[in-house]
């Protein structure tokens, strides 16, 4: 109990004093995870829509696959991306290992299945409602998928947020492909892991509390935006 109070006080102090190192770590965390979320949405949402609307062989297999990949272990993704980006790997020549770009790639791979699977669910429900109307108007399946993506944009924020939540909270993948380099690839979660291994548990927990606060802030902003938008558009 005493330790948790210490952490709360410490978290408050770190935020109140505007600790510059903390600020840069939080900024990098947000930069990496928000970019990964954006990329995952750009890839995963159209994919989810096609899985919902499309009719092609192997569709059910793909749906099950993406549902399963939602539980992809971050360490495995990290290792995979490490082997790809390592100098000895197929993409080694780009020198991306131990950069924020590598972390973005790993987190994107990690959360594309989450975004795609949740988007598929949202779009499939909408498709059931819209299907006849869109077909009657002469929309192709591809066109219908695009229309449903745009029309479901408020519900789809949930898919994006789920992906973001997973991205910013994971440590296994960014630790391996980022290397936790001070000032370059050190993010919230890797800092927490580092402080834990230094035995500074109050500081680690304080950082954890700040991470939770950041995630809550992003979710609150998204929630309010969605509320406003739904009130506006129905």
């Amino acid at each position, binding site marked *: 109990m005493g330790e948790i109070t210490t952490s709360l006080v410490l978290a408050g102090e770190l935020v109140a004093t505007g600790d510059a190192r903390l600020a840069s770590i939080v900024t990098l965390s947000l930069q990496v995870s928000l970019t990964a979320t954006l990329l995952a949405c750009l890839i995963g949402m159209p994919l989810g829509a096609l899985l919902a609307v499309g009719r092609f062989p192997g569709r059910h297999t793909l749906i099950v696959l993406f549902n399963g990949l939602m539980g992809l272990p971050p360490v495995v993704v990290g290792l995979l991306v490490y082997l790809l980006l390592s100098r000895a790997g197929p993409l080694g020549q780009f020198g991306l290992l131990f950069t924020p770009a590598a972390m973005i790639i790993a987190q994107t791979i990690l959360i594309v299945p989450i975004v795609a699977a949740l988007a598929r669910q949202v779009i499939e429900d909408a498709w059931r*409602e*819209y299907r*006849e*109307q*869109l*077909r*009657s*108007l*002469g*929309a192709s399946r591809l*066109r219908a998928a695009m*229309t449903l993506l*745009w*029309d479901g*944009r*408020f519900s789809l924020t949930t898919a994006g947020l789920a992906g973001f939540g997973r991205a910013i909270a994971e440590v296994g993948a960014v630790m391996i492909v980022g290397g936790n380099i001070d000032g370059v690839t050190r993010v919230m979660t890797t800092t927490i892991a580092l402080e834990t291994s230094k035995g500074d548990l109050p500081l680690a927990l304080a950082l954890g509390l700040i991470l939770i606060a950041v995630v809550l802030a992003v979710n609150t902003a998204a929630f309010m935006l969605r509320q406003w938008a739904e009130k*506006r*558009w*129905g």
Partner: protein
Amino acid sequence: MGIGMAWLVLDRLGLTENGVCIINDVSLKVGAGRTAILGPNGAGKSTLLRLMHGLLRPSAGAQHWPAPLTQGMVFQRPVMLRTTALANVEYGLKLRGIKTPERRQRAMAALERVGLPAIAERPARRLSGGEQQRVALARAWALEPQVLFLDEPTASLDPASSREVERIIREIAASGTRIVMTTHNLGQARRIAEEVLFIDSGRVVEQSPVEEFFTRPRHVAAQRFLEEETP
């Protein structure tokens, strides 16, 4: 035998889903400008309409269009996209590849014809049920279809909205578009249709001019239906 030159021919059309026969061996010719499909609940009215429009694929028989006609459909519950009323009307035109100055102009004209130019920029989903149905009519009308199918277009509406929707349907018909609609409102069928298709348990058992159907129904199921439905 129906009224006028046949523009749609159904030949032994049937639909079976999960072993249940929904439409059973329907052969007829549609030639009237305004046709109402009547029948008890669950008789297969909406299914027949969807088969005609091509939203459902028949499991037996076929339909022929002697001359290809452009079609549209308006549903009982209008599906509005989360955008403005005007953009909803424009959507169908956009799918036809019509570019923006003309598209906007035609969509606006359609909204004017349904009496809703004032709500063009309002979010469609925020409109009342009656207004939404009129936007749906405008969306279909803007495409100037040669045939318009309507599935219970006033079933979810209050009397005032129903009257307005009926007025619009008559105007669409007057503009030369063929109308095929299902309804359980006999007064509406009488006011709008020239010809009635009566369907019972998946079979079209009677096809008559509207006055004849309401005064001298030939089939026993139609007679019973009219007795039950007329107060």
